[in-house]
């Protein structure tokens, strides 16, 4: 109904300002997004195809890309059960301080990444409270891939919680009631009724957490230790290459990150569409 109303008024003569607003939007997007990203897409090829290939297959670059994508994927996957638990607690139970807890979920969004970076490092460094604790049982947290993972876990958590919360709130009571009257146990209802309904939102939340984690810089570089081949993330490698005035090499790594992340998001969207289709039938 609403779209019909808009359609009726789509003639520029009725609602004014279309040329101005469209012109402004296109000019701004062109200058800020399209032209700069076009340059990113074109710059690496000044090395030639063989040059791009050798720039990307450099062991240090491969190690950085592998670290960035695997730790991001792992952190997003671990965020899934944690986010699920927190989202469930916030929507299904009433307790004092629930709204405060709900607001706190957004803290990783609100805390600037550099602040989160030095704070996490202070906690997990060998002389920090949590780092010392882990060191006692022989686990190195900061300045190891595990440190990168912890920072990415922090960054991604709100994406999962915020993705599933509205779905959990809207979930039809009657479906769960029906399952109950048909004799399904509590666990069965969660497993067979609630989780399938949540799956598409959960997948999209994990996808968003992953996308954010792959490119994350500020909260990671302090805790990572940045040892070449071991704890150097891909965005840091771009910075290093720029400092060496290797613009084309930096652009190659940047473009590779954008392309791989885009491919991953397409795959995640396809999975989400499949799960959503399943839920309906």
């Amino acid at each position, binding site marked *: 109904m609403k779209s019909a109303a*808009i359609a009726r008024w789509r003639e520029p003569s009725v609602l004014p300002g279309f040329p101005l607003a469209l012109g402004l*939007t296109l000019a701004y997007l062109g200058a800020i997004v399209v032209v700069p990203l076009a*340059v990113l897409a074109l710059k690496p090829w000044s090395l030639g195809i063989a040059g791009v290939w050798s720039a990307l297959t450099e062991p240090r670059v491969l190690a950085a890309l592998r670290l960035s994508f695997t730790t991001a994927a792992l952190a997003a996957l671990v965020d899934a059960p*944690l986010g699920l638990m927190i989202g469930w607690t916030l929507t299904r139970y009433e307790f004092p301080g629930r709204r405060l807890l709900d*607001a706190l979920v957004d803290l990783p969004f609100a805390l600037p990444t550099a602040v989160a970076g*030095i704070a996490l490092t202070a906690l997990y460094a060998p002389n920090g409270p949590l780092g010392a604790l882990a060191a006692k049982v022989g686990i190195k947290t900061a300045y190891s891939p595990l440190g990168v993972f912890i920072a990415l876990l922090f960054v991604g958590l709100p994406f999962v919680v915020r993705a599933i919360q509205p779905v959990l709130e809207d979930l039809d009571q009657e479906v769960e009631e029906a399952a109950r009257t048909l004799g399904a146990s509590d666990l069965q209802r969660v497993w067979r009724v609630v989780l399938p309904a949540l799956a598409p939102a959960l997948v999209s939340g994990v996808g968003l957490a992953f996308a954010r984690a792959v490119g994350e810089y500020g909260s990671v570089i302090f805790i990572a230790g940045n040892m070449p081949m071991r704890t150097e993330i891909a965005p840091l490698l771009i910075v290093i290459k*720029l400092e060496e005035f290797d613009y084309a090499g930096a652009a190659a790594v940047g473009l590779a990150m*954008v392309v791989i992340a885009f491919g991953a998001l397409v795959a995640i969207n396809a999975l989400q569409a499949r799960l959503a289709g399943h839920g309906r039938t």
Partner: protein
Amino acid sequence: MRPLVRLPGAAPLLLLSSLAVLGLLVVLPLAVVFQQAFSKGVAAYLAPLADPDALAAIRLTLLVAAIAVPLNAVFGLAAAWTIARFEFKGRTLLLTLIDLPFSISPVVSGLVWVLLFGAQGLFGALLQAWGVKIIFATTGLVLATILVTLPFVARELIPLMQDQGADEEAAALTLGAGGAAVFTRVTLPKVKWALLYGVLLCNARAMGEFGAVSVVSGHIRGLTTTLPLHIEVLYNDYDFVGAFAAATLLASLGLITLVVKTALEWRFADELAAFRRR
């Protein structure tokens, strides 16, 4: 409506686990910022904040946000007016382009400006001949910040304005109001809280942005270090109290943003895009 599924005995367990995860992962880092900043007393906390470089960093952060946020707000209004009020081919493409900055690494958002305006960039030689400096200067910081924060206002306004529809605007027009009057007297009041919400998030990100500005800044103390970069400089100099003292300013900004955001969500849920459908 709650609780629907009871899971006997699970409620306290889930609540405690959620509290533990949020406390350990989210609240503890915030607490440690203040603990570290005040670890050597109040005087040691205040001294690094009165440092000329710190004051310059604060001024620069405010300046960059004061340019980037209004520009992105105007863009957000224009984009929302275009996309939510008219049907035309390529709307989906436009929406994708607006979302794009959210899905690329902040470092890449800085890199693209170096590729354009850096010493060996596309326009590097030309800028040098003209004596114009963009990279390692305030202009570069502003450009990088604009790119990173571009979607915030538009993303908040577009779904809300699509949802609200154009009936009232159309009615105002038939009653003889001019285009400017319709926009300022009908549309703006309908979206004002959403606009504020978008501007709030945009500003928080603009002032806290690190990766993108780090690439274009060159870290020239007192000249091109914004507050987040100033934190990094102090931290790498092993001036931990100074770094955490500067960090308390940004952490406080984050907390204030969170409080205002939550207040807006509680008070004006119907007038914000994300909460309308709940």
